[in-house]
């Protein structure tokens, strides 16, 4: 009988092979299912996959400038740095021509990019361009381009500018990733540490991770009892408590910031109370804001609901009889909590922890407002390069690393806790 099923194809009553008939019957369902999710799929592609792809592309892309100075870069690659201190005449000539006849807007854009590799490129090229344009207008092409450029601006005789050009002569470059890790190229394109006085990114990465981990832990410590209370109070009290929990969401950033500062500053409420109680002396007032403490306090408060809500939704469905059962079976309340209640809240802790961590790692406005000298997290630098220096390559590299860090944490989490063990509600 079993042989019969496995070897000869089954037929429907009408004589069509069963598998084929089933496929036909299900095709319609599959199509319908696909059409239902298609708008979402499209939405995700447009709003998520494409931007991230664009970001990853931008983090290594250097084609714009290569389109502006193709000949210069070609000639540049022939320069033997061992033999000649400065590039050969051909490089100067190609640069002269490409500045003279290139499109002004494209050059402007290339300038912004060149300035990332060395400060000063921008004005160097701009002043030179003006001279070149004048010369071209008067139809006075120089005999020696090298001499012309150096006389236009003596920085053209400075080899460090020429060394810096080496960073951009290829269509794709890893330099932004190196920059994002406090590294740069030396004159021979070797990766070296950035000038000590400019090293900020590794420190900022560590600070950002540290603060995110601390905030997550504090949110857990503070949120757990609140969520437990919420889950076990009668409805009318828990609703009221829930409003208090959600209050930070409904308060404007500026009001919140002002409130924290009023509370935390040296002449503020908390220090005042501590001095009044005699716990602190008047000169021993604590610095609670405009530093890392302030950042931690403010971020913990604002992110607390993201911990409490998933915890609450998980705790609400843990039957009260479990704690009773554990005690009935001989476990002291602490043991019962530790072995029976706590493990059941892991999905909530995971969801809340992951949410808080992910949000914290990208936070930058609040920490900047209350963090003083410690308030610049990695998000600040992403925003800074996005808006102010327009160094979108570095921006993208920082973003890609951030994404990578998140994926590593996600992987670790999956290894340790298991991704099924996450529950948002």
């Amino acid at each position, binding site marked *: 009988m079993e042989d019969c099923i496995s070897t000869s194809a089954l037929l429907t009553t009408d004589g069509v092979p069963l598998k084929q008939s089933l496929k036909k019957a299900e095709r319609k369902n599959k199509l319908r299912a696909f059409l239902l999710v298609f708008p979402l799929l499209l939405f995700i592609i447009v709003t998520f996959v494409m931007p991230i792809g664009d970001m990853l592309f931008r983090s290594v892309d250097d084609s714009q400038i290569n389109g502006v100075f193709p000949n210069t870069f070609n000639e540049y690659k022939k320069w033997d740095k061992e033999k000649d201190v400065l590039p050969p005449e051909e490089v100067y000539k190609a640069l002269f021509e490409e500045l003279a006849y290139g499109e*002004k*807007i494209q050059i*402007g*854009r290339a*300038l*912004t990019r060149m*300035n*990332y590799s060395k*400060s*000063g*490129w*921008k*004005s160097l090229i*701009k002043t030179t361009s003006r001279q070149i344009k004048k010369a071209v207008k008067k139809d006075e092409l120089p005999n020696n381009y090298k001499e012309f450029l150096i006389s236009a601006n003596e920085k053209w005789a400075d080899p460090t500018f020429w060394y810096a050009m080496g960073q951009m002569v290829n269509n794709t470059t890893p330099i932004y990733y190196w920059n994002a890790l406090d590294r740069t190229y030396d004159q021979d394109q070797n990766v070296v540490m950035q000038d000590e*006085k*400019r*090293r*900020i990114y590794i*420190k*900022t990465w560590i*600070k950002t991770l540290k603060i995110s981990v601390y905030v997550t832990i504090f949110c857990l410590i503070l949120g757990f009892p609140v969520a437990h209370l919420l889950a076990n109070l009668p409805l009318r009290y828990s609703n009221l408590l829930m409003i208090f929990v959600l209050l930070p969401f409904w308060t404007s950033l500026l009001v919140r*910031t*002002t409130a924290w*500062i009023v509370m935390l*500053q*040296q*002449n*503020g409420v908390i220090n005042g109370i501590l001095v009044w109680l005699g716990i602190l002396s008047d000169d021993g007032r604590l610095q609670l804001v*405009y530093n890392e403490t302030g950042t931690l306090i403010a971020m913990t408060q604002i992110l607390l609901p993201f911990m409490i809500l998933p915890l609450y939704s998980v705790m609400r469905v843990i039957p009260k009889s479990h704690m009773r059962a554990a005690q009935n079976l001989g476990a002291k309340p602490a043991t019962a909590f530790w072995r029976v209640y706590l493990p059941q809240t892991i999905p909530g802790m995971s969801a809340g922890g992951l949410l808080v961590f992910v949000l914290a790692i990208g936070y930058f406005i609040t920490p*900047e*407002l209350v*963090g*003083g*000298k*410690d*308030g*610049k997290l990695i998000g600040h630098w992403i925003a*800074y*390069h*996005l*808006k*102010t*220096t*327009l*160094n979108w390559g570095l921006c993208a590299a920082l973003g890609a690393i951030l994404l990578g860090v998140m994926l590593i944490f996600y992987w670790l989490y999956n290894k340790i806790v298991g991704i099924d063990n996450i529950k948002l509600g």
Partner: protein
Amino acid sequence: MSKFLKAFLFVSLVFAPFAASAVTVASWGGAYTESQQKAYADTYSDPGSIVFENYNGGLGEVRAQVESGNVTWDLVDVLPSDAITGCDEGLFEDISSEIASMGVPGPDGESIAEDMEANGLNYHSGWDCCVPQIFWTYVVFYDPDAFPGEKPDSMADFFDVEKFPGKRGIHTWADGIIQKALVADGVAPNAVPTVFANQTGAIDRAFEVMDKIKDHVVFWSAGSQPLELVKSGEVVMAVAYNGRVGAANLAEGENFEYIWEGQVLDQEYLCLTTGSPNREAALDFMMHASSPESQAEQAKYITYGPMRASGIPIIEANEPWGPGGVDIMPHMPNTPERLKVSIVNDPQWWSDNGAEISERYSAWMGN
């Protein structure tokens, strides 16, 4: 509910044509945009055609709009270094000829550029795409009650925590403070930009001066914070935007003193976005907003100075110019005698070196 809906539909239908042709100006918001609204838009021939929208500075959004071809901001209020970069990159349209031909001349026929040069400014490529707005400055201020005896009156005093003990409030970015540091080290204020541009090691020198007060600094990051810091006694002196100090003195009855020496004058421009959907109307409004009269008018509402030199005499001649019959000139940063002790920021140098210095400043601050 349906009544409300109908009313809403009606209103939107009636106003839709206007909304479409309105000139959208992206600006910084708050009291500053309010002053622009009153001084530029309300005095304009068609006030309803100007709509202000808030943004947080920088060229990121402008570049995104221009790159995507979906330009919604006709005009953008920017810092000078952004004016330069934006103009170089073609994010802002080169309208130098329009500015020359349409710009409202001063009482003696001064052009916009001449007026700005009279205020101590030098040409940069931002002038090709943008019209001037206001001078704002990083100024040190203090509460006189905090110093019963001798009062600080120079940058040297600000950087001397032995002579004037107490914390200082400084912002979390480099611009402004590193120039002040050189003044404290004996460089004449007017010479500071050239020292930075031409002397190697000038930046190191500034950081060495700042090292002296580093342990006595509370770093702030929002414009309202230095006022709070000084008011609450958290710091005894702070660097702030002069407009904030002026508002506290004029509107909140505070009695803060300025240290004008070493104030860092920075500029503010209104630029035309490339591909602006209302180019002609926007150009017309730009010229109105950059007239000496409009600029003087703005000083009524916020104590930033007109970037056109010919705006100042209008204020002087009509004092009390401020609200409620107060004199405004004591709060203006760019009077001739204050200009003598001021640093006029060099935006070209900042657009060259800004990124590097800002990284370096952060490293210094965090250590």
